[in-house]
């Protein structure tokens, strides 16, 4: 890729220059991390526009559809139809199944007719996912509402301590957005290498992981498909990898999962000490 990328994605544009630092835990290889795993036994929540259960690319893996209703007494989570308002949730689900074909998908639809309460609905859907003890939750959407900041912060912490890995797409627009900026989630931006398994770890905030998000062939509404670009489509690639890890190593905490991902990332290794960098001598 010759063009410069947006600030969020910039570190992933030239990994050789930007991402030399890499963690290599002895024995933690991709084969150890997820070799032979299919995602079996892992439940992945998709907080999004819904899931089209009968979409051919979802392979009948959707086990539950819920949505958030905003009543006078506050939001409640109720059963939902097998529908996707835009196609976006279905796209994310299909990307995850492409990596982890045997996960169970749970649709938590928070995009509905009542747009005024969408931030509240998002928070309520996230809380439900954590309370259900879902192992993985894909959040390819974000809130910019300052008033919801403390609520999302609290929920992200609860997820972290309860063992629900939240995979959160960084907003493509350079502005604060939650919960992707919290350290307790796995935040993801897009890189442009057309490989669903290509993963980068970025030790510099705000975005920790880079996955494929440029010109991704995706499932779309009404059984269709299209090609799309956005961090929205990078996040589910990481969600798929996390599901694989948790299916092979059940019970790992989000912290441990992050460490494994950092260890198996495609970051180039440290440079051999040579020339000026010799004194920096990477023996630490």
């Amino acid at each position, binding site marked *: 890729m010759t063009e410069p990328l947006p600030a969020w994605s910039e570190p992933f544009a030239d990994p050789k220059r930007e991402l030399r630092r890499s963690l290599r835990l002895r024995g933690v290889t991709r084969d150890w991390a997820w070799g032979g795993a299919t995602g079996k036994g892992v439940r992945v929540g998709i907080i999004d*526009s819904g899931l089209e259960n009968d979409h051919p690319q979802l392979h009948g893996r959707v086990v539950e559809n819920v949505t958030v209703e905003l009543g006078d007494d506050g939001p409640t989570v109720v059963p939902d139809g097998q529908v996707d308002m835009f196609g976006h949730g279905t796209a994310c689900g299909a990307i995850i199944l492409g990596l982890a074909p045997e996960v169970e998908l749970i649709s938590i639809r928070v*995009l509905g007719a009542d*747009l005024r309460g969408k931030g509240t609905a998002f928070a309520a859907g996230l809380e439900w996912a954590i309370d259900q003890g879902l192992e993985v939750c894909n959040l390819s959407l974000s809130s*910019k*509402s300052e008033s919801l900041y403390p609520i999302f912060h609290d929920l992200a912490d609860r997820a972290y301590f309860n063992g629900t890995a939240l995979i959160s797409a960084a907003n493509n627009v350079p502005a604060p957005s939650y919960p992707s900026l919290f350290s307790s989630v796995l935040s993801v931006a897009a890189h442009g290498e057309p490989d669903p398994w290509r993963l980068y770890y970025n030790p510099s905030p705000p975005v920790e992981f880079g996955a494929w998000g440029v010109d991704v062939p995706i499932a779309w509404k009404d059984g269709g498909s299209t090609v*799309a670009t956005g*961090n929205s489509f990078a996040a589910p690639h990481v969600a798929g990898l996390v599901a694989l890890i948790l299916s092979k190593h059940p019970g790992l905490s989000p912290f441990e999962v992050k460490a494994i991902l950092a260890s198996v990332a495609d970051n180039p290794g440290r440079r051999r000490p040579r020339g000026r960098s010799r004194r920096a001598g990477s023996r630490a």
Partner: protein
Amino acid sequence: MANQETDAALAALVAAARRSAVGRRLQGDIETRLLQSIVDATVRLFDAEAASIALFEQNPDRLEFRVAAGEQGAGAVGLTVPPTQGIVGFVYSTGQALSLSDVANDPRFNRDAAEQTGYVPRSIAAAPLLDEHGTVGALQVLDKRGSPTFSLKDMELLGVFAGQATVAIAAARVQRDTDRLLRSVLGQIGPDLEDGQIQELVAAATRDLDVDDDAPFWRLVDQVARLRSLTDRETELLTDILDVVAAHAMRGRRGRSIR
């Protein structure tokens, strides 16, 4: 005493409201002009077939395409779509920028777009207009001529233009919207005022504005707005005439007050 103070405050509010309304009439629709310049720049920079901005409006909830540019853009102006549908609805609802290529293969999208604007794009990129309270609309670009898809760099640029549009909207709205202006000022100077009280004060101050476009005062304001195109000589002439009219009015007022 308290009544006098209240009356004076209300009179000041009425004057402020009137001044704001006059300013709005003199300036024309500054928001639309600013947004138009942004989509014009977007279309040129992307070398795209069309660019447009849709803003969220209430009662009923909808996204209304306010401005458009490019050879294929004209059909979009005035179009409204439910905020729960389509690419622009998605970007508005989620606050996430998105680009799709190959959209012509999406039969539903294809049909809707063709019915509404007469143009079916091959690719589309859209970014949310985000202010401090949330999303107010979306900026979209259709079909870059040089490329079948939009790159991440394109998305970043689109985000920059969307940011500009948001600032333009916020600035123009405060100037344009007398109610909003008064509400925000009252909220700041009277933190103890309840929403209902603020609403009442604003309603009282703006009650007589905009009720009759043909009232002599508003006709005069509209005439003044048109005077911007006058030459220096014509302006001088007009000033002389206004001097005479003002002197006449003063004489008339003195005469009335004697009686």
